[in-house]
């Protein structure tokens, strides 16, 4: 049978605010257990929550960037359940009145563009962390330790419509969400540290059927690779069951990256009934048009807008505009580099291939090098002015990255400036012609490759410094 895959993603993005959602504790990550806690986030008796205004604005920003409607009258609700990482015995979340609804974003998989609906975005507080002692596995642990540093750290949960039709689309969607929240500066997008977490609702149905199949929710997708692999393996599992005449059980499944398999998380202990009700300790949140406008006006330029602008006013190709806008840091570096006079197209090429290539080899980030946009611009301008060749530029880039010295200084010190003196170059050209009589014959016989060889010989003899334009000019003149 021909099966259609139906996927919806729930992404939890940790807001990178200074303080927590309901108290003033430091919201940043620390490995020292229970050092970012206070009476409020540990649920001490008599303590009361107060909403962090920045979290509301961050949620509005994500909503506006994904074309959501912003709800005017918002409410926080309590989600009641017992667990040792949940100090109050309830999580403060939003229930039937989420701050953002009915949005969408566009994804592009191998040139095919699709619009994916966003059902809702809501604010909630995170739970603490449990360390299971005696084993990495909760099942074999003899006891557990609760660290509440993460308790009440702000999250936005972004829920997509079941619009995704393949693991690739799901991955592209997740990448897009990560790109947007990073551009907005509301989340650092670090999946390894758990700042961005993803659950996938997966079902399959025969092609052409309009009703949805029974879904499973797959948790623990901690990287884009995991999202793709987990969806593929779960889809395969579901299709196998259905083709053998079985039925899918609606349940939560845990993805194990090591074994590349999903496993049921069912537990007979659980009686699920979260008993949501409006939190009486918090008052409603009223968002008026003026507030929405203020947040809208302060939104930074988003990847999609930047891409279009680069294509229209910087004449970048769609490919170049795409690659340079993927990462927020790269695009900032690019914009600053061209602000110093470097040409956009050259800048894209240099950043994407030479700069990131060199950094990759060294295993470091753009932010960790001594290379500044100004230094890169100076280097590119030297090429542009024919002071050095591109080849020379490539050889000195690692030194700039290492030392932060400017290109002009390195070129002067090492005597790498391009030679454009006609007389000097002519001597070399003549000498090379004399030594390669056979090659000259080939050229005259109509073999263009041979010309390249000659140029190479000349460049080599000039230690790469001869101006290639003049070399070509002289060669043509002397051989004609």
């Amino acid at each position, binding site marked *: 049978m021909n099966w259609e895959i139906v996927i919806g993603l729930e992404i939890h993005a940790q807001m990178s*605010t*200074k*303080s927590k959602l309901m108290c*003033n*504790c*430091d*919201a940043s990550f620390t490995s*020292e*257990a*229970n*050092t970012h*806690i*206070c*009476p409020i986030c*540990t649920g*001490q008796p008599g303590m009361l929550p*107060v*909403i*962090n*205004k*920045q*979290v*509301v604005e961050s949620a509005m920003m994500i909503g506006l960037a994904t074309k959501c409607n912003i709800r005017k009258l918002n*409410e926080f609700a309590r989600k009641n359940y*017992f667990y*040792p990482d949940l100090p109050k015995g309830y999580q403060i979340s939003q229930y039937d009145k989420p701050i953002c609804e009915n949005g969408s974003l566009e994804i592009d998989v191998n040139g095919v563009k699709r619009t994916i609906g966003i059902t809702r975005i809501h604010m909630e507080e995170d739970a603490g962390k*449990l*360390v*299971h*002692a005696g084993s990495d596995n*909760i*099942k074999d*642990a*003899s*006891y*557990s*330790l*609760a*660290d*509440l540093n993460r308790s009440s750290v702000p999250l936005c949960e972004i829920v997509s419509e079941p619009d995704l039709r393949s693991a690739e689309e799901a991955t592209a969607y997740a990448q897009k969400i990560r790109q947007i929240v990073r551009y907005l500066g509301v989340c650092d997008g670090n999946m390894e540290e758990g700042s961005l977490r993803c659950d996938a609702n997966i079902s399959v149905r025969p092609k052409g059927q309009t009703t949805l199949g029974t879904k499973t929710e797959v948790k623990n997708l901690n990287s884009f690779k995991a999202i793709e692999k987990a969806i593929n393996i779960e889809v395969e599992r579901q299709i196998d069951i259905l083709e053998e005449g079985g039925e899918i059980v609606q349940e939560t499944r845990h993805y194990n990256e090591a074994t590349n398999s999903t496993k049921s998380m069912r*537990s007979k202990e659980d*009686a699920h*009934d979260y*008993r949501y*009700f*409006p939190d*009486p300790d*918090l*008052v*409603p*949140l*009223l968002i008026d048009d003026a507030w929405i406008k203020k947040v809208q006006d302060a939104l930074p330029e988003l990847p999609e807008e930047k891409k279009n602008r680069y294509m229209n006013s910087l004449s970048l190709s769609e490919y170049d505009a795409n690659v340079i806008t993927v990462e927020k840091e790269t695009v900032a570096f690019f914009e600053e580099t061209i602000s110093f006079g470097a040409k956009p197209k050259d800048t894209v090429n240099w950043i994407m291939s030479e700069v990131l290539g060199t950094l990759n080899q060294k295993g470091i980030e753009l932010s960790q090098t001594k290379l500044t946009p100004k230094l890169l611009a100076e280097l590119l301008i030297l090429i542009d002015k024919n002071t050095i060749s591109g080849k020379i530029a490539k050889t000195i880039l690692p030194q700039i990255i290492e030392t932060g010295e400017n290109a002009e200084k390195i070129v002067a010190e090492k005597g790498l400036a391009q030679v454009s003196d006609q007389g000097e170059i002519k001597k070399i050209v003549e000498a090379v012609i004399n030594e390669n009589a056979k090659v000259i014959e080939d050229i005259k016989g109509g073999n263009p490759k041979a010309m390249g060889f000659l140029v190479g010989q000349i460049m080599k003899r000039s230690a790469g410094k001869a101006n290639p334009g003049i070399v070509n000019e002289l060669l043509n003149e002397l051989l004609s």
Partner: protein
Amino acid sequence: MTIDKKTVEHLAKLSRLRFSDNELVSFTKSLDDIFQYANSLQKVNTDGISPSAHAIPLQNVFKEDEVITYKDIDKLLDNCADVENHCFKVPRILTN
């Protein structure tokens, strides 16, 4: 809408309480009495009435996003029955 023993057992599970048989009987009886009485609410016409979660309507109460470090963390931990490595220690979560 009367309350039976099974309902009370379910409620006990949801609220992490455990009862003896006698307690179960007694709570079932008192809850049933209470809800027999409270069912008078169903007579009230509440069509189109919005629910009040608060006594007095207030809106938009926020705190600014600033870090204030709490200095008495050790005193918080002193109230815990079992502390290990500066963490709240709990018995094994899953049993076989």
